[in-house]
């Protein structure tokens, strides 16, 4: 098999809308590249100690599937993993 998820743990800058209890990432900067979110394909949350970490599976406009997360204690966005189509 050649298609895999590549794991990351990188801080990223994200533009998101917080409205009516929902978080909606719109755009983010990964390295030197700005990417626009075309669709949030899935969302879930996990507890890490006192923090709640909100996870988002995204499809960007340039057809990249990846997962990012937001830690509500550190207020940090991070890139989790990216799909590499083989």
């Amino acid at each position, binding site marked *: 098999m050649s298609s895999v998820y590549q794991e990351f743990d990188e801080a990223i800058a994200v533009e998101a809308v917080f409205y009516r209890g929902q978080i909606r990432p719109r755009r983010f900067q990964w390295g030197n590249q700005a990417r626009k979110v075309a669709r949030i*394909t899935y969302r*879930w949350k996990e507890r*890490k100690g*006192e923090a709640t970490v909100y996870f988002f*599976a995204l499809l960007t406009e340039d057809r990249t599937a990846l997962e990012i997360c937001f830690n509500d204690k550190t207020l940090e966005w991070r890139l989790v993993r990216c799909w590499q189509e083989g």
Partner: protein
Amino acid sequence: MLSEPTPPKQRQLRRPEAKHLAVGKDSGRGNIFLLVDMNAFFASIEQQCNPFLQGKPVLVCGDPKMRTVVAAASYEARPYGVESGMPLQRALQLCPHAVLVEGNPAKYVDTAKRLHRIFLEFTPQMEVFSIDEVFLQLPPSADPLEIAGAIKRRIREQEGLTCSIGIAGNKMLAKLAASLQKPDGLVWIKPEQAEEVLKDLPVEKMPGIGEKTAARLEALGVRTLGELARCPEERLFQVFGDCMSQFLHQAGVGRDGTPISAFYQEPIIKSMGHNYTLPSDTYDLTLIKSHLHRLSEMVGRRIREENFTGRTVRLTITFGGKTYQSLHSITRHLTVDESLFDGLDIYRVALRILGRVGLNGKPVRMLGVSLASLRKGIYKPCLWEDFEKKWRLVAAKDAVNNKFGEWSLMTADVLAVVRGPSRRKSDLPIRAAVRNMKGPAPKTLLGRRFSPS
């Protein structure tokens, strides 16, 4: 004063109100049971997360670099013979082009909780049977087809997932009905249809009858549920004993009187434990002890969260072998006088058991530690000062782990075998995650009332 020990008992919590319950004419039926079975749950969630996985054979597993099994296979992988529980290497032989995705239990548990909120809109009588199966009980006046259809639509619209729903007059038949049409099925076995539906079905189709029981039934000339229904109960008793023969006799006619164990009722807990299959069979005693300590700490943490102590430590060891059939497991236990709640004390008892059992030069594949003889609350021990010091130490450790995440604080020997706190991978095994879903939310140890007399 320390809290007085009380035996575990069922406790009623607040029942939520159902919003969508359809009420129709009383048909004269008894209660109606639904079994909602999510289709290829983990794999379907991963395919929802990543559109590039849709239409492909997907295997959700543990770390593919270590020994692991298939936790879930998408429907595209199943025609190749891949099944849940199959060793990954075997699955890849059957389906070499499968896409492997390392599972994330926290993701699936969070999804399951959202699904439960949907189910509770229809009825408060919900039993979480497993992470992807839920029993629902409806009153006789409800329209089960309308409710099942509404549930399927809600799940599809909200989560993009499908489920198979079985409807029947009891839980056993509801579960059987759900298994008859997958994926995205809806099957209702009405009481007057049960005999006709069951008569030609193989016995292993009935929940609770596995391969070994089916083989023993075949030796009696019983292959179908119809034949099982006609088999005299005395004959079953001679082969299977009292309890099993009664169950088989009832299963043959599709009779089951077990009630819903509603989610808001605390189950009676008899023991708590954790198992772990090592990445490879090992003779390394240091490594084995480190894993034993880690498992003991996990048991201690859960025991304290539920405000239990226990006196019987049970150790299970599965020894490795060249083939699956040559695996050999032993379980030994030791009951002590003191009430155990600290992982280190549980580990020390487990080590005593290990010392008595010995490995006898055989490699270890799996370890399990559990604590039984449970009591609610804490017994006041004789050596009060030692107990107080230990209690405070354990409370402090729990407080650190509650604040910063599991395994933020651990002993050096456990550090060697624990993955560090991870943003994505959950350290919570799936079965433990399901148990946490069923019970009340974890409590911090510092929230306990504690004051020396």
